[in-house]
């Protein structure tokens, strides 16, 4: 196995009375693409936010490149989290900036690239997610949901980060564009050697982009294995999830 890029151990997080993460252990190797699956509200996005330092876990450790970032503060922590590019579930574009300025944001900020050069890089990243230069001058509010998602994707990969988090990259996209984005994610991981951690409900996408799949249920990773073994996981939870059956051990909180 390759050296671990990200290591989560015994991660716990509660909001008030509600326990969301209850001891998550997960290791992601360098250059590996891991997909987390799990029911809506299971805490998948919370895991990403804990790693990014946007939420602080109650207990447990998070290591990036073998350094425990939960023990670091300020600049020292930023040095590690700066390696991560993030696509937010709801895109989170800056609505006071034009589309291309959104994509170029980190280029301008981090490396202080001149405006013209940053714009060119932004346009080429936008082309990779299927957005033409005519979109560049629009405001985020003028885009459809799927287009916003793709701008968010372009912004996440703009600086060629070592680690990329994709929170539901294909939700809200048409099937063809979903496949384009899947290819793009595979490409980014293969060609740039990036490490990817994705969340998706789209099993076709998961099978395509993942080296490994981990299933989050009841605050823990209940199954974790290579993508080829997902159909023979031997776990009813996973079977129910990947086949999308209402009947099974996972109970949705419904009242009939």
């Amino acid at each position, binding site marked *: 196995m390759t050296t671990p890029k990200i290591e989560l151990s015994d991660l716990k997080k509660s909001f008030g009375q509600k326990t969301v993460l209850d001891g998550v252990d997960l290791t992601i190797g360098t250059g590996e693409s891991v997909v987390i699956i799990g029911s809506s509200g299971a805490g998948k996005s919370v895991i990403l936010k804990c790693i990014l330092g*946007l939420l602080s876990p109650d207990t447990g450790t998070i290591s990036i490149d073998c350094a425990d970032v939960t023990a670091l503060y300020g600049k020292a922590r930023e040095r590690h989290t700066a390696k991560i590019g993030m696509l937010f579930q*709801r895109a989170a574009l800056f609505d006071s900036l034009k589309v291309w300025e959104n994509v170029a944001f*980190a280029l301008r900020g981090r490396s202080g690239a001149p405006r013209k050069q940053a714009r060119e890089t932004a346009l080429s990243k936008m082309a990779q997610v299927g957005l033409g230069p005519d979109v560049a001058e629009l405001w985020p509010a003028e885009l459809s949901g799927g287009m916003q998602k793709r701008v968010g994707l372009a912004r996440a990969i703009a600086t060629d980060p070592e680690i990329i988090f994709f929170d539901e990259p294909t939700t809200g996209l048409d099937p063809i564009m979903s496949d384009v984005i899947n290819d793009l994610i595979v490409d980014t991981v293969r060609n740039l050697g990036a490490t990817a951690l994705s969340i998706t409900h789209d099993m076709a996408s998961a099978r395509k982009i993942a080296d490994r799949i981990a299933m989050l249920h009841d605050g823990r990773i209940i199954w974790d294995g290579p993508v080829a073994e997902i159909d023979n996981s031997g776990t009813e939870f996973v079977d129910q999830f990947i086949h999308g059956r209402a009947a099974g051990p996972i109970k949705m909180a419904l009242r009939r």
Partner: protein
Amino acid sequence: MSFLAPVGRVLIRFLVATGRLVVFALTAVSHCLRPPLYGGLIGRQIIQIGYFSLPVVGLTAIFTGMVLALQSYTGFARFNAESAIAGVVVLSMTRELGPVLVGLMVAGRVGAAIAAEVGTMRVTEQIDALTTLSTNPYKYLIAPRLIAGVVTLPILVVVADVIGVFGGYLVSVYSLDFNAANYLKLTWGFLEPFDAISGIAKAAVFGFLVTLMGCYHGFHSRGGARGVGTAATNAVVSASILILASNYIITTAFFAA
């Protein structure tokens, strides 16, 4: 002893909120003092807070100056009316009404706008996105607004002072038939640099309070459109109260010693 429990709970909640505000303010100020600063963003905020507030500040000031002259005429008509009116107008404008009224108007106009903008960025995860793009939200969002507030309010107050005195002059000369040159001479005679400076110092404090309240409530807003609405309301109310309270404290420090 059970009646103590709710009292204690309120007290604890108050102390927690105060502590959180103080930490927020200190963090924000430390980012204002440390480079790098975003010059372009500061400029944009100065235009937003200063330039676009000019109409509302001008109207407030001119009517205040006019009504001051009118009111003091009814009160002082039996005495040395002309001199008294010029003095009342210029002293009340520069010392108290200029900074306080400008502060309150800007609190309503700018404090609410800042809280709504920053609050929307919070609930749509734009502030989280800033962090993931290696940009400190305090430096990028908060510091430019605080700096713009502290720089701009004194300028607005000087403008308000001038327009307010002009309003008093209009009423005195055209409605009360005083001698124009004499009125101006009296005004000038009453004007002490110390009065103007105390008003300007107040304005800087109020500018800080208004932008701080807007940023603080926006930054900590939660829960969608309603949360942002609450943040805007809280920003205006808390800024207004802090302006009136700190005005009393500063006046005590300047004039009662």
